[in-house]
Every structure is written in structure tokens, then in C-alpha cells.
């Protein structure tokens, strides 16, 4: 088994899964009906993408773990999502800024993965990128509308940007595992993604009248290696409750 690739697939699947779960928690709580539907639809797309990644991971591992076992029966330290995805929902500015950062990185990653030497990864990217493009257009629109909105919305958006900025670098800090994937032509180089990410964020922020913190600021890290914030435990407690309390239950 290609252990590095298995881990790489978990990273992709867990990013989508944890963000999907967080967005799902907002169901019925959106600030407007349209936003509520958008949040849950994005959550649904991400959940579908999770299934493709984790199914492939389970098959590659060859230990009989399917998507459900990987999602519901792993513990905190076995999750490989970046810390950005587990940041609290907070106010709507936090939700949208987190989404915009995620969508921007996600879009450029999927675009590069279309050329992955792993055919199945390229197929998953091809399936995902149309959905991700739609997500990015929406979150970019909202960042502009709220950033260049009222004094209050602008202040809240800027506060969310400043709060979350330190979580935007982890995806571009490559460890040995990421580098092995680059070596094999499975994954794109960090710098390719980082350059595209920073450029897009700068363009949208300019239009949104938001100031962009320094790209050279200290960046939080650890999620990809399984070192998470306390928050992930609460997310998993809710997400995994049913399978933990009633193992193997189906309906």
C-alpha cells in the first residue's frame, strides 16, 4: 500500500468532510433564506466530494475500511484536515471569510489536480472543480458585498480576515508526505498554489476594500499531521455520535 498517497487522500477527504459538517450545523440558522440554502448546498457538494476521496482512500488501504468507517470511526488525532476548516462558525463574516479562503485554495488545488499522474485523483478533481468554481464565485461575491458594504459589515469582515489569516498558510507548508506526492506527480508544488491563492485573494480584497495581512505572517500548522484544536473534538462528537453509540446501525 502506498501509505503516503493514502494519507494524502485522507487530507483531501477530511478537509471537505469537516467543513461540510460545520456548514451543516448552520442549517436553519442562515441570515437569510437564500444564504441558508447556499450553505447547505455547499455542504452537500463537499460531502459528495468527501465520499469520493475517502472511498478511494479505503480501497487503496485495502483493510476493508469504507468511506463510512473512515468518517465515523476515526479519532481526533487521526483526522488530517487543515486547521482552517475546524475554525468556529462565529458570525456570518467568519463563515464567509473562512469559506472564501477555503474555496480559493480548493479551486486552485482542483485545477492542478486535473493533471495529476494518478488517474482517479484527476477524475475526482474533474468532477469537483465545477462545483468548487460555483462556490468560489459565490463566496467572492459575498466578500465584496460585505467588505464594501456598511461600516459594520466592513468592520466585521476585516476582523474575520485578521482572525483567520494565520490559518491560511498551512495548506502551502509541505511536509515530507506532500513532497513525496509532488515527486510522483500526484500533487502540485506548494508555490504554484500559494502564488495563485495570494493573487486571487488580493484581487478580491481590493474590490472589497479589505486590507490583506502580510503573506509572511506566522502561520498555524499541525492539522495535516493530526494535531488539532479542541474544537475538532466537539465537531466529531456530534458527527460521529450515532455510529459510536449504535455501532453499525443503518436506516
Amino acid at each position, binding site marked *: 500500500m502506498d501509505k503516503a498517497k493514502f494519507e494524502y487522500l485522507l487530507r483531501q477527504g477530511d478537509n471537505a468532510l469537516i467543513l461540510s459538517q460545520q456548514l451543516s450545523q448552520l442549517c436553519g440558522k442562515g441570515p437569510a*433564506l*437564500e444564504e441558508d*440554502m*447556499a450553505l447547505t*448546498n*455547499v455542504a*452537500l*457538494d*463537499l*460531502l*459528495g*466530494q468527501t*465520499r*469520493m476521496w475517502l472511498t478511494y482512500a479505503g480501497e487503496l488501504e485495502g483493510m476493508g475500511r469504507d468511506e463510512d468507517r473512515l468518517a465515523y470511526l476515526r479519532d481526533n488525532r487521526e483526522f488530517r484536515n487543515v486547521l482552517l476548516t475546524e475554525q468556529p462558525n462565529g458570525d456570518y463574516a467568519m463563515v464567509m471569510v473562512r469559506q472564501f479562503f477555503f474555496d480559493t485554495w480548493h*479551486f*486552485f488545488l482542483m*485545477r492542478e489536480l*486535473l493533471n495529476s499522474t494518478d488517474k482517479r485523483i*484527476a*477524475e*475526482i478533481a*474533474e*468532477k*469537483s*472543480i*465545477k*462545483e468548487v*468554481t*460555483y462556490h*468560489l*464565485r*459565490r463566496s*467572492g*461575491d459575498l466578500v*465584496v458585498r460585505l467588505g464594501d458594504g456598511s461600516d459594520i459589515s466592513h468592520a466585521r469582515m476585516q476582523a474575520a480576515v485578521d482572525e483567520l489569516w494565520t490559518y491560511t498558510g498551512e495548506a502551502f507548508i509541505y511536509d515530507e508526505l506532500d513532497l513525496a506526492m509532488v515527486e510522483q506527480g500526484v500533487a502540485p508544488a506548494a508555490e504554484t498554489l500559494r502564488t*495563485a491563492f495570494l*493573487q*486571487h485573494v488580493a*484581487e*478580491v480584497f481590493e*474590490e472589497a476594500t479589505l486590507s490583506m495581512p502580510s503573506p509572511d505572517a506566522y502561520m498555524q500548522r499541525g492539522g495535516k499531521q493530526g494535531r488539532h484544536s479542541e474544537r475538532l473534538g466537539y465537531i466529531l462528537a456530534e458527527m460521529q455520535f450515532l455510529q459510536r453509540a449504535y455501532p453499525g446501525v443503518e436506516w
Partner: protein
Amino acid sequence: MTEAIVTDTAQVWAWLGEVPDPEIPVISVVDLGIVREVAFEGGECVVTITPTYSGCPAMQVIAEDVEAALHARGVDKLRIETRLSPAWTTDWMSEAGKAALKGYGIAPPVQQVIDISGLKHGVKRHAIQQPDVACPHCGSHHTRLTSQFGSTPCKALYQCLDCREPFDYFKCH
């Protein structure tokens, strides 16, 4: 007397053309472009389907409906495969399917899919033209987007500015 084993792909396609989409029952899974291939491999019928949106909950129901429809017509040896690439696009929707959607009150997708090759240089926010969506009720092109997402992953919400009716738009994908 046993029935003859069906090995005619055209017949299977015709039967699948009668399987409705579970969410939008006026359109069949064939008209929607979900069925990609029908083949026979040593007496076993292999139907290849592709998901519309990766998280669409209707996909499992569609697979079950396809299975039930073919079993009911005597196709006993059946396998359903899922194919991701090329990714499903609304360009695969048949003209009959689009007409049926319109009759049902859903504006059909405009022939303008997201071109993946065009995304190579990033996403220019202002280069994105809103599609010209006609009202399925009065035909007016004087419409506006009210919500980028609707009741299912494949739809957005619009309103006609002439007859004032709100309606679903089946998004280009």
C-alpha cells in the same frame, strides 16, 4: 417457457428512457444524460451511470430505480457502474428533456457550461456573464437571479420581472 434473454442494447436504452428522475419526474434518466453506456458482457447487462452533482442524494435512488426497471423486464444479470470522467454536463441533456423541464415550470439550462479549460488562468470575477434565462411561464427574458442555490443542487431561483412569477432554473453545469 422461459423468456428470451435480452441482449439488445437499443431495447435497454428504450426501457431506461422510461425511468424518471426521482426529483424531477417529467424527465427520464436518459434525457438527463445520466446513463452513459449500455453494454453486454457475456450475458450480463452493464449500465454505466454518472453522477450529476457529487453529493446529489438522488443518485442512489436512480441506481435502484434503474435496477428495478430492468429486473421487472427480465434483465436478471445486471451490473451498474459509476463513471466520473468525463464529468456530467447539462449539455448532455436532450432537447426533449429540456422541453419537458420547461413544461414543468423549470427553466432549462442555457447551452453554456463551465469550460474547465477556460479556468486555467484563474477566475476573473467580472468575466462571468449571467446566463440569459427565459421565464418558463411567459417566455420573457426579463428575469433576475434571486438565489444561487435552490431546492436541489442542480437548481437556482429566478424571478420573472414581467409576469412576476418566481421559478426554478436548472443551472448550467
